[in-house]
């Protein structure tokens, strides 16, 4: 039998909340699948649509952008801009026929190690049946 | 060789060409393009395709080589020559075929471009004389062409009613006629005069023309600094339509496209490039010798009607009218040339 498909996920985590939240998941020794490679950015507001498209272009099966809850942004309002920008990217990608499940956004605070764990677990679970993302990826 | 083929037998002929990939113009949502087809999909009545058949012998992207860094740090390089089947392209307009001969000059001569010729040698071009102009902007007769020109063609078909008058000009052409047994007949004199009559009428039906074309190349020599270019280029938007669609434009770029940076892996690719793009002549110093659209429009005209003429004794324009029909702002190469001709 063929080996089970393991989706490749890129997660853009803001330094102050979501990355700290994932650290807490670590400190609490919560277990989740190893499919996600996190990239810590200063703020979810700094995640350019280009990053998301590039991750898919380079073969990511799923992309996650995670920031502080509204009102909790270390930079006061970066996550509000992120929310608007990501909403537009998400709408556009869905409009062109990318499976909506492949691109997700979440609010994870520094205290929500458990939530981060759940998000990653669920993301991997959703992506597995979808198989490899070939639509936007570079063909060899 | 001259033959007669009834239209009824035409699909049978195509079917007999079993060892060839068959290309012909097909329509999808009002757009005509050359695609790989089967015998029954070929239509005779079609306007100009959006893209000329140059993409069959000179694709918009092709690989030169692939490279990588081995585990021990040594570089690995592998040449990637095209591996193409023999192909027959049906329905090539005489002007487009003439364009292919221009490409042959560019990619031949002192230096033979192996990638181009690997494809080119595999292709047999079957033309169709234009009984009626396929575009409202046809002007082949003004640039030393004609609706029944045979330059670049291996075979020319002329529609003379219920049959084709078939002429071959090369061994490649003969081979595809000989691939079918019993379909082709020897032409009767009447059929030959019919064909000639049709050819003459086609010339008369030419929708557009440019008088005194011969005056233009020498004239252009003196117009490099003329303000004419600024005025003509006012409405140009610097897109790449005119040149990408041109059957004779052949400029290309070579880039290394990296698929993995560590360990290094990638391919060297050739892609079409375009003198109308600002980055075409951009130097790494930041200097751009053609900094504005006027200088780029001038380059396009100069190259086609001056430099190419000097180098190859031909206009680098075959009068298909694509650049006129598709220009988003109505820049009309005939009009520009008329202004060059009449410039004082």
């Amino acid at each position, binding site marked *: 039998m063929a080996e089970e498909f393991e989706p490749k996920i890129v997660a853009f985590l803001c330094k102050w909340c979501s990355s700290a939240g994932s650290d807490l998941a670590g400190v609490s020794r919560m277990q989740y699948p190893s499919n996600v490679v996190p990239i810590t950015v200063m703020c979810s507001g700094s995640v350019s649509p280009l990053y998301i498209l590039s991750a898919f272009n380079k073969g990511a099966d799923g992309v996650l952008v995670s920031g502080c809850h509204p009102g909790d942004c270390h930079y006061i309002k970066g996550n509000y801009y992120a929310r608007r920008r990501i909403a537009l990217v998400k709408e*556009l990608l869905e409009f062109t026929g990318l499976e909506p499940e492949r691109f997700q*956004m979440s609010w994870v605070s520094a205290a929500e190690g458990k939530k981060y764990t759940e998000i990653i677990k669920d993301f991997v679970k959703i992506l597995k049946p979808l198989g490899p993302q070939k639509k*936007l990826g570079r063909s060899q | 060789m001259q033959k007669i083929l009834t239209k009824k037998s035409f699909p049978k002929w195509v079917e007999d060409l079993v060892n060839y990939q068959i290309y012909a113009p097909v329509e999808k949502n009002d757009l005509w393009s050359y695609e790989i087809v089967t015998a029954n999909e070929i239509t005779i009545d079609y306007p100009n395709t959006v893209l000329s058949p140059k993409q069959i012998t000179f694709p*918009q992207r092709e690989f030169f080589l692939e490279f990588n860094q081995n585990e021990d740090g040594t570089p690995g390089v592998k040449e990637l020559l095209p591996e193409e089947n023999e192909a027959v392209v049906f329905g090539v307009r005489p002007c487009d075929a003439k364009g292919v001969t221009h490409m042959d000059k560019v990619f031949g001569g002192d230096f033979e471009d192996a990638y181009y010729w690997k494809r080119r040698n595999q292709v047999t071009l079957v033309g169709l004389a234009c009984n009626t102009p396929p575009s409202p902007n046809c002007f082949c007769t003004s640039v030393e062409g004609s609706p029944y020109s045979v330059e670049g063609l291996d075979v020319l078909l002329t529609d003379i009613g219920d049959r084709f008058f078939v002429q071959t000009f090369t061994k490649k052409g003969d081979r595809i006629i000989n691939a079918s047994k019993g379909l082709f007949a020897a032409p009767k004199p009447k059929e030959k005069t019919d064909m000639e009559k049709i050819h003459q009428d086609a010339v008369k039906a030419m929708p557009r023309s440019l008088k005194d074309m011969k005056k233009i190349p020498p004239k252009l020599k003196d117009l490099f600094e003329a303000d004419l270019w600024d005025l003509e280029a006012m409405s140009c938007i610097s897109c*790449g339509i005119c040149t990408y669609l041109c059957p004779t434009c052949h400029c290309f770029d070579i880039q290394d*496209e990296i698929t993995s940076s560590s360990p290094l892996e990638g391919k060297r690719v050739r892609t079409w490039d375009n003198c109308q793009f600002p980055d075409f002549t951009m130097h790494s110093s930041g200097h751009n010798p053609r900094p504005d659209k006027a200088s780029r429009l001038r380059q396009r005209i100069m190259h086609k009607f001056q430099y190419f003429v000097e180098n190859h004794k031909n206009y680098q324009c075959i009068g298909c009218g694509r650049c006129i029909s598709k220009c988003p702002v109505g820049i*009309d190469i005939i009009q520009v040339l008329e202004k060059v001709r009449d410039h004082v």
Partner: protein
Amino acid sequence: MVNLDDLKKEAHRILEENKVKYIIGYSQGSNGFPAVPAFIRNPEDSDNLIWNPACIHNLTRFLRDEKKRKAREKHPDNRPVGIIVKGCDSRAINVLLQENYITREDVFILGVSCEDTGVIDEKKLAKKLMGKMALSFDWDGNRNLVVTTKNGEIKINADEVLAERCLECPAQSPVVYDILFGDKVKRSPETRFESVEKIEKLSTEERWAFWKEQFDKCIRCYACRSVCPMCYCDECVVDTISFAVTADTTAEEKAQKIKWIDKSPVPSETFFYHMVRAIHLAGRCIDCGECERVCPLDIPIRFLNKKLEKEAKNLFDYEVGFDPNQLSLVSSFKDEDPEDFIR
């Protein structure tokens, strides 16, 4: 109705009085082109101006060239440029003002109202004429296009030949102008996003199949971005070459240019280009439809922009081009912006 003579007279006046350095308008094209952009410098040439249903081009695109030309001039002529704008084009002016790309003093705006019609879709008209050549055409005032051909007149209902974006236009008359020709109208079409909704109704895989076919055709001639009044960046993020190079740019800096996409016109790269274009036009596109019109391969690029226009309206209540003083779509937010997609 727009009175062409009035328009010509006004053009003549402002040129003669040296109010403007030149006027960007429309004139008769050569063979087969019913209207082309024209740049009128002499008052007497005002007579070459035309106004008809084929005046499709968004002339504000040429303000980019004007700005560059002016930057190169040693002694810049600071008079405004006269420009003829339709409703959609005038919204482009507002966006350019919003983005400080031009100032209001840079342009003298001759607004023309499309009233209850708009401009034609050349392809739709060609189909209706079935090979016949139009000698001239105009609206009859009753939402019919009257086309004169060699074989006489043909009357066609406006809805059958209007460009799709005109059918979905939220304001057919200019929202900013110095002089207005024709009547001021404001209507809210019920069908403002119909073209987009048709695609939305498809399943994910059908949508992908649709766009895959479209993007596969793309030859990256970049006519869509070249014609766009908002694509005024000197260097596009998807370009592989740095334009912003000066004498003291180091080799390392040049090497830092990110190759977000390859030059190869393969589907993944073409898709990336069109996505970036659409995202960068979110909240900026005024739906003049030029990108789609100029595409030699008939890719319905406009749908991408229209989709984001729709979401800007629905999700954020954001309208483009009506207020030059509003904050841009992506440089603003509201506390109550939707977040049901966020976990």
